Structure formats: structure tokens, C-alpha cells
């Protein structure tokens, strides 16, 4: 257990430094730009200026939209957050439910289906799932709108396609983690005591199986934020991902940097929250 905290604790002090890394890219981009504009400046000085500005909340100016790139990010981020959160919720909910069912009824039809799903899900690229969904639910049956942001019906397809991969991963891990736990002595003890089966599974089983699952789900959140880039492109979802891609094509470097820096920082914050969650789920970690 202490290994996990140690690993997380290592990642967290990395926080101030990892804001620096996109700056590496920034130095080069800036340099390119200076070169094209004929302005050469000491990289260290530029870096210091940029870092200083960022610390004061000034992320620079978008060349393309002629406004502060931070306010651009702020306008777009809620859409991405909504998408990623919905995908995360779906993948955690479906993944854990299916994972538990297949572990409890090992060898049953749910289990066989879950195994196929876990394998297939991890082999399908996000964008292909998105395209298939558009074809089936958008074009063939005309059930759901295929682009733009709006009500729940707009959210459903992008969220499912984005969460598909994570869903498979969570299913697989929940299954193996639950199988491990259900095999242990205290589960037998609980059953012998006459604890109702659903309490055994949910309280004794799931709570103890949840540490690796929480880790995985939190890691997935980062990849969902990243994967959102492609899903946003397919479904014309107005989030930071499509902002970043458009900015790359427009050579709008401050916007690209801003998106990468802030989105990464958000992820680091999420990791911190997860770190705290561990202690809540498993009291041993507090003393570990």
C-alpha cells in the first residue's frame, strides 16, 4: 500500500515542474516565431518572462482569435469537462457493474460477454467507435444528433464513444480484482457468519477491490481528456481539444501551450484528489 502513496506522492511534487515542460515546447515555438518575425531573444530570458506571466495568470494572447488565450480556454473547457466527466461516469458505472457481475457469476453468459467486450473494446480506436455510432444511431436509425453540443441527446454518443476504451479497461480490471478479493478468507468468513450475499459483494468485496479500480479510473480521466480531442473533432464538440487542433493548424502557439499547460495541471489536480480518496477508502494508507 505504501508503494502506491509513494508513487502518487512522487507525482504530486512534480506539479510545479510539469508546468515547466510545455514551456520547453513553448521555447521552441516562440523561437520559431521570433525567427519568422526576425526577432531573436535569449531563450532563458523568454522562458523567465513566460513563466513569470503564467504564474501571474497571464497565458499570452491568441494570434488567431485576438483575445487572451486563457479566456478562450475558459470558454471552451466546460464543454470538454462535461464530455470527459460523462465518459468517465459511464465507463466507471458500466465497467464496474459489468465487472462485478462477471466476477460473481464467473463462467456465466455475462462473463463471456464481458470478456469479449473487454478485449474488443481495447482494440477499437476511439474515433472508429465514434464513426460506427454515427453510422448506426445517427444515419441509419436517425435516433441521435450527430454533431454539436446541446441536451443530453447530444452528449450520449460522444460520451459513449469516448468512454468505450476505458469501459473495457475498467471491466477487465474490476473482474480480476473482484475475483482476487472474493477468493480471500474474510469473504468466506463473512459468508459463514451469514452476511447477506449482496453485502458480502458490495461491502466486503468491492470496497477491498476498489484501490486498483480507483487508480485505473483516475488514470483514465487523463486519457479521456486527451482522447476528447478526437471525439470533439468528429462530433464538432466545442471543447478545448478542437480548440487545440485548430490552433495547431492556425499556428496559434500561445493557445496550444495554454491548452496543454492548463489541461495537464487539471489532471495533476485530479491525481491529488485521488490520492486523498485512497486514504478515505483504505484507512491503512493513512498510517502507511
Amino acid at each position, binding site marked *: 500500500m505504501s508503494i502506491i502513496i509513494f508513487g502518487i506522492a512522487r507525482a504530486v511534487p512534480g506539479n510545479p515542474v510539469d508546468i515547466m515542460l510545455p514551456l520547453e515546447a513553448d521555447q521552441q515555438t516562440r523561437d520559431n516565431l521570433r525567427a519568422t518575425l526576425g526577432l531573436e531573444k535569449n531563450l532563458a530570458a523568454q522562458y523567465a518572462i513566460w513563466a513569470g506571466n503564467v504564474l501571474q495568470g497571464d497565458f499570452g494572447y491568441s494570434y488567431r482569435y485576438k483575445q487572451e488565450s486563457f479566456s478562450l480556454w475558459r470558454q471552451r473547457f466546460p464543454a470538454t469537462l462535461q464530455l470527459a466527466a460523462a465518459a468517465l461516469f459511464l465507463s466507471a458505472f458500466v465497467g464496474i457493474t459489468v465487472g462485478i457481475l462477471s466476477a460473481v457469476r464467473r463462467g456465466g453468459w455475462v462473463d463471456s460477454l464481458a470478456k469479449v467486450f473487454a478485449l474488443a473494446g481495447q482494440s477499437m480506436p476511439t474515433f472508429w467507435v465514434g464513426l460506427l455510432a454515427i453510422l448506426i444511431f445517427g*444515419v441509419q436509425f436517425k435516433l441521435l444528433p450527430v454533431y454539436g453540443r446541446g441536451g443530453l441527446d447530444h452528449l450520449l454518443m460522444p460520451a459513449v464513444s469516448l468512454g468505450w476504451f476505458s469501459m473495457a479497461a475498467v471491466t477487465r480490471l474490476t473482474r480480476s480484482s473482484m475475483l482476487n478479493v472474493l477468493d480471500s478468507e474474510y469473504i468466506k468468513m463473512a459468508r459463514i457468519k451469514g452476511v447477506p450475499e449482496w453485502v458480502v459483494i458490495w461491502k466486503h468485496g468491492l470496497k477491498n477491490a476498489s484501490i486498483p479500480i480507483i487508480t485505473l479510473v483516475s488514470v483514465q480521466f487523463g486519457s479521456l481528456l486527451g482522447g476528447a480531442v478526437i471525439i470533439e473533432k468528429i462530433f464538432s464538440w466545442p471543447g478545448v481539444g478542437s480548440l487545440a487542433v485548430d490552433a495547431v493548424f492556425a499556428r496559434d502557439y500561445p493557445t496550444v501551450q495554454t491548452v496543454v499547460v492548463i489541461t495537464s495541471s487539471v489532471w495533476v489536480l485530479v491525481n491529488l484528489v485521488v490520492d486523498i480518496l485512497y486514504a478515505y477508502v483504505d484507512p491503512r494508507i493513512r498510517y502507511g
Partner: protein
Amino acid sequence: MTAPPRTAVAQAPWSVFWRHRRRALWEALRSAPKLPLLIIVTILMFAAFAELLAPYAPDFTNFDVRLKPPLFVSDDGARYIMGTDNLGRDVFSRVIHGARISVLVGFLAVGLSGSVGTALGLISGYFGGTLDSVIMRFTDMMLAMPAILLAIALIGVLGASVQNMIIVIAVATWPSYARIIRAEVLTLRNRDFVQLARVSGASGARIILRHLLPNVVNTLIILATLQIGITIIFEASLSFLGLGVKPPTPAWGFMLSDGQKFLQGGAWWLAILPGVPIVLTVLATNLLGDWLRDRLDPLRRQV
């Protein structure tokens, strides 16, 4: 006095490794899952002999046969296995040629990130101390950024090309190797055979290359196999966003994004079929990776 143990210790690992391997290799291949191997060999053949296998040149346009549906749903007797696109190009031929980019990027990016990550993991794990902290802090930093965002930012700086795509994918994926290999080395570095080598005067480089590396090769093979699938999806994603190869060159990801605008018009095959080889390839490498894990790493066998 010191001579015999030195040669004995120094020569054991790689030769044992190869003797063991050669014997096991044939037997291993026979028990390998057939379907994944078949898929992988097919894709490799596509990549190697695209000109011979493809019925048409990938950029051969024929405006008389624009947007013809694929063979299995066609009712007007068209002979295009995967249909044709808006310029009358044969989708199947383009898919065969597209294997080139995926295979090339898949292997080179995995090779590059695998070597960099393994080297750093070995050094970090063996030497420890400040060097270890520096390398690991850097690894943490890299891991703290969503890989695809990092790749997009880097492509924005470097420009879109196959070469840059390989570099960018390697930059975004090496940390996982470094992390895992380092963890492995930490369990090995205080074992007797490493201590013996050190006592008998072997240099750090020698210990790393001849004693530690052979012992992490199994982990490395499993990791690299599983990474090939991830890398191919990564490549397809970048191509999909238009950050990969330039348009006339066929790449699976770009064909899909290009085909999306025809979905509404009914030409669904353009946006779906080029994804099939991606799914199959990734499925095959995942299955192969799982099989290798079971075989080479019995301790971590999954339930």
C-alpha cells in the same frame, strides 16, 4: 585467484539466455495463438508487397466509378472489395498501401521509445541516487501530460511528417518503459549475481548490459508487443486529425476522417472499412501480448 569466477559470471547471462531461447523458440511458436499471428503476418505482407497485392495503384483515379459500394453489398456487379471513394480510387488498394505507414510508424516508434525508455530505466534503477531522482522526476512530468495533447503540441512545433510522427509518439510513450524497467531493476540490483559481478570488478555499463538487461528482456518483450497496438492507434489518431502524412499517401486514420463527410450521404464504407485493419491489428497484438505475458511472466498471470 579471481580469474575463474569472473569469466564464469560474466559469460553466463547472454549465453544462457540464447541457449534457453533457441530451445524454447520453436516450441513457443507452435503453441502461439494462430489467429493473431495470421493477422500480423497478413498486415506485414500488405506493408511489404503492397504493389503486388493491391489490385489498383493507391492513387489511381477513375471518375466513372466514383463512390461504388463494396463487393458484398453491391448489386450492380462492381468489382471493388471495399468500394471506391469520391475520386474513384479503390479503397481496398489504399488500405493495403496504408498498412505501410502503420507498420513503419508502429515498429520504429516502439523501437525508439523502447530503447530510450529502457536505457533510462536501467540507468536510473542501477545507479540510483541523484541521477535516479532526476530521471524519475522527469518521467513523472512526462506522465502527467495527456499523451495526445503533448503529441499535438509537438507536431505543431515540428510540422507534420512521418518522421516527426515517429519522434513525437516516442517522446510521448517512453516514460512507461522507464518506469517499469526501473522497478524491475530495483528488484534485481541487490541480488547475488549482480553483487558478485560488482565485486569481481565489472563496470557499471557491463553490469547493466550483461547482467541486468538479459533479466528484463522478458518484461520488455511483453511491454513492447502491447505498445505496438497502442502506437498504431496513436498513429491513426494523429493521421485522423490531419497531423500525419500528407493526403495523397494513404494512411488508415486519414482515410477515416476523410470518409466521415460521406457518412450522411450513404457512402458509409469510406468512414468504416479502413478502420477494420486497425482493429484487427491492434486486437492481434493485444492477444499476442497477453499470450506472451502468460508465457514469459508466470508470476503476473492474470486471473
